[in-house]
């Protein structure tokens, strides 16, 4: 047990993942890890980029002459395809370094933002879109629609920010950290010193 981390179910699980030979092999791979990571980064343009185009339509900034239903039927599936690639490459990257990532504050922030993005997407498709027929062809949809789109853009921007910052070790357990970071990252506190 690495004493830098608070023991927990999550910690036991990630330690078990970390014990896999394939996890180590992927983490230390000269070519596979960089290729998976690059795919994860480049897919930002397919997933977030195409999603932003749909969100810009919902905000009334682009494709004002195209009904929202056409954007969600013909453009959004490409973004969802990109999202699937993101999930596959993202899970592989987590599998390569699970204990470290589970105790990385940026990774934890990213997971929270992903949950927020999921709730927002659910709100758009299951709630806000109920009366879509009314505003489908409006160049500038109602404020509820624009709010969801603005939230989508902001939260995914936050996901990109948090995701990129995972690479930096400023808030790593084992370095001199504030009480808040020790708590947020689930670091063990040395009570003997």
């Amino acid at each position, binding site marked *: 047990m690495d004493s830098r981390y608070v023991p927990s179910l999550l910690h036991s699980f990630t330690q078990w993942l970390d014990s896999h030979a394939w996890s180590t092999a992927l983490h230390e791979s000269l070519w596979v890890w960089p290729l998976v990571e*690059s795919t994860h980064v*480049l897919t*930002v343009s397919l997933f977030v*980029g195409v999603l932003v185009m749909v969100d810009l339509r919902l905000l009334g900034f682009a494709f004002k002459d195209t009904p929202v239903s056409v954007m969600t039927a013909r453009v959004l599936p490409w973004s969802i395809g990109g999202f699937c690639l993101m999930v596959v490459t993202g899970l592989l990257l987590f599998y390569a370094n699970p204990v470290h990532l589970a105790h990385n504050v940026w990774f934890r922030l990213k997971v929270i933002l992903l949950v927020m993005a999921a709730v927002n997407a659910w709100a758009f498709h299951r709630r806000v879109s109920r009366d879509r027929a009314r505003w489908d062809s409006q160049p500038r949809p109602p404020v509820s629609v624009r709010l969801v789109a603005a939230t989508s853009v902001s939260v*995914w921007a936050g996901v*990109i920010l948090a995701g990129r*910052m995972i690479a930096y070790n400023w808030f790593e357990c084992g370095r001199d950290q504030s009480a808040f970071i020790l708590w947020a990252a689930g670091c063990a506190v040395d009570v003997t010193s």
Partner: protein
Amino acid sequence: MNASAANWPALVGRWIVEHRCALGSVVLVAVLWWLLLPWKSNAATWCEAFGLADFYREIGDGGIGRAIGESLWLFPVIEVVHLFGLAVLGGSVIVMDLRLLGVGLKNAPPARVLANTRPWFFVGLVVMIATGVPLFLSETTKCCFNHSFEVKITALFLAVPYTLAVRNRVAVRDGVSTCALQGAAVLSLGLWFTVAAAGRWIGFSG
């Protein structure tokens, strides 16, 4: 078994014939990659070959490059904004090229899709350049000897004029064959993919 399922070799054949120009362009881009990348990774970079290392070091010694190099936060923050630019630029390029390939917004005229994506292409490009130049200034010496950087910049200097002068013109012209539209789209996707992929690889190579 229904008729269309039994007929699948003919359907696949027809799909290949219909997309011969897109497929041909994919092969062309793949062959260019296969030929150029190993050659580039063995030869000296242009910066090296033309003795520009001192010049690169000097421009990196300016205020911007030093400020980013000395700061803990500046490089990552600029890089994140660079990624925001990647999303906007990439999204606008992909939506337009999908239309040219006959998918995505296939029922809208290409000129209308272009009119809607072009402003965001420029937004993305401006963000990319405004953040990319400072990132370069913070590590000019690394970039001088970095093959990925050279591939990226070469592809970028091809991709921008190609997109503006060729693809966008082909997209709005009347009577352009489906074949030419598909080829133009694949070349665009191939060039921009090279810019992005080689850009990411700068960080992995030296």
